[in-house]
């Protein structure tokens, strides 16, 4: 074996070892998911809110895949949420009421839309990408409005009846099945996303994000990788849309509205992008914030959301998760023997 080969295999081994290390589950992560399950038993009256949180978390997770890992900015992510919601709703109305079938169709339809629109985000700079995604989002909204014989137009899809989950669990009024279903889907997709971002594929995405020129020069097929992750992210958003349609049994034009895209961006900004839990933590904070504000000013809560956006950006986006990281670093420093 010649010297460069040796060095290369040594490097590959090093990369493999570091990937394996990052793939290991941390205790705090296990605690997070145990907490999510425990919450269902601790607060049985808040299950509907918790269901919304789980769905928003999945939506934010899908944005994190492209924004946090591949550096693709998007102002039209609601297009995929809406595609998934309408597909799942239409499946339940016209074909079969099985939730998993609807979920699958919603993911597939959104993924396909993502694949078709991915060439649009490969070109240009951040600014053009923001405009193009915004344009695609608005296009989808106009399309859903115009095709009212399929989508019901402004009235939305009404009278969706969901079948039993796995043929056993009926969707009840209190949201018990709904929360378990949404949390389950979120968990499965999260584990998949976690595996993907800690794979060589995920590593190549981060290389593209940090230095596209150098990544291309090192032989990373930039366009294919970005198209792949964009499609994946679209499918994830479609899953969130499908869950939304199935658990609320209603789809309206609101799922495609611009404020959905802006909200999910705020969620990711609150929680921080690029470590997967950001969207999850952000969605909890966002929903509580929304619930709290709309408690005393239901009509004008948008004002406060706007104020939070402005303050977040002025104060630095890393405010919250930067703080958490600092606390974690302190805690880690307290017990010197156990550095991961």
């Amino acid at each position, binding site marked *: 074996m010649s010297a460069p080969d040796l060095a290369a295999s040594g490097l590959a081994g090093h990369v493999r070892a570091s990937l394996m290390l990052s793939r290991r589950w941390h205790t705090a992560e296990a605690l997070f998911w145990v907490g999510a399950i425990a919450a269902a038993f601790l607060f049985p009256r808040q299950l509907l809110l918790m269901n919304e949180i789980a769905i928003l978390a999945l939506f934010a997770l899908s944005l994190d895949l492209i924004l946090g890992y591949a550096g693709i*900015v998007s*102002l039209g992510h609601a297009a995929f949420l809406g595609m998934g919601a309408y597909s799942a709703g239409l499946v339940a109305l016209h074909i079969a009421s099985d939730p998993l079938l609807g979920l699958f169709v919603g993911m597939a339809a959104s993924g396909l839309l993502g694949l078709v629109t991915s*060439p*649009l985000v490969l*070109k*240009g*700079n*951040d*600014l*053009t990408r*923001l*405009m*193009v995604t*915004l*344009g*695609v989002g*608005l*296009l989808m909204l*106009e*399309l859903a*409005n*115009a095709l009212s014989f399929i989508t019901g137009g402004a009235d939305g899809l009404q009278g969706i009846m969901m079948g039993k989950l796995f043929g056993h669990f009926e969707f009840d009024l209190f949201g018990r099945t709904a929360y378990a279903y949404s949390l389950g889907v979120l968990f499965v997709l999260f584990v998949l996303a976690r595996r993907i971002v800690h794979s060589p594929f995920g590593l190549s995405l981060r290389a593209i994000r940090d230095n596209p020129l150098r990544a291309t020069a090192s032989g990373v097929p930039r366009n294919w990788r970005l198209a792949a992750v964009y499609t994946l992210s679209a499918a994830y958003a479609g899953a969130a849309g499908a869950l939304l349609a199935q658990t609320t049994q209603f789809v309206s034009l609101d799922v495609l509205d*611009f404020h959905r895209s*802006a909200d999910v*961006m*705020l969620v990711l*900004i609150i929680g921080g992008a690029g470590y997967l839990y950001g969207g999850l933590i952000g969605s909890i904070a966002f929903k509580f914030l929304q619930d709290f504000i709309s408690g005393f000013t239901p*009509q*004008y*809560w*948008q*004002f406060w*959301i*706007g*104020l*939070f*956006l*402005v303050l*977040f*950006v*002025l104060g630095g*986006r890393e405010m919250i998760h930067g703080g958490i990281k600092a606390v974690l670093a302190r805690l880690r420093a307290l017990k010197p023997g156990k550095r991961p």
Partner: protein
Amino acid sequence: MALLTILIDGVAYGMVLFVLACGLSVTLGLMNFVNLAHGAFAMAGGYVAVVLMQRFGIPFLWTLPAAFLATASAGWLLERSVYRPMYAKSHLDQVMFSIGLVFMSVAAMKYVMGSQQQIIQLPGWLLGRFEFVGVSVGRYRLFVIMVCGALALGLSWIFARTLFGSRLRAAVDDARVARGLGIPVNALFAATFAAGSGLAGLGGALGIELLGLDPTFPLKFMIYFLIVVTVGGTSTISGPFFAAMLLGVADVAGKYLIPQAGSFIIYALMVVLLVLRPDGLFARTKA
């Protein structure tokens, strides 16, 4: 002759869009700053005109300069206080920041003025239509075309012929070199931002009759401003002008001839143009 009427309506619409958006194109070109809240200034100008007319009985023509002055000073104040720290941040930060401002302005306006459409009473000599060589022309539309056309000419004269204009062009081309040559880029920018906001306010007041005015105005027309700016490019006055004309005529014709398609045509047009010419349709090719 319905087609000619559509053309004239479209031109009037495009003229208003140009006055609304030209400030945005200069701020984008000068500081590379994405101000999605530009429409909030336009809305503010519209409401200034409405309040002055309805509460204080001031004639329509006098409300136009008032709308300009009010929004220009608001723009100047905001540029000094909250916008300036944004220039160094990423596009994503700027977009989120200005969306936050949009949300705030929409909710605040809903709180103060209510969410209904605002209606104004135009003076008698601007009402109605007249026949010109067999073509029916709205008086108000003709007025708008003349006012905005004069503004566009004035702006392109300032841009091309004055010292201020040549400094501005130099700063847009390369802010660092311009600074090195002693051009006060920051002061230039503050002045341009204020003037651009003022023009947006003026456009908002002129457009009440053509575009409508309610608290969702900044969100509804955000995409239109962006189309004008991205398609027209930021390095000239004529680029955004022709882009606005194109958009105005295409939108009016589309909504008139194929009403069921709604704004679909416009959005599709924008996406296609952005993909084909990411730097704008009328952008100069960089050597």
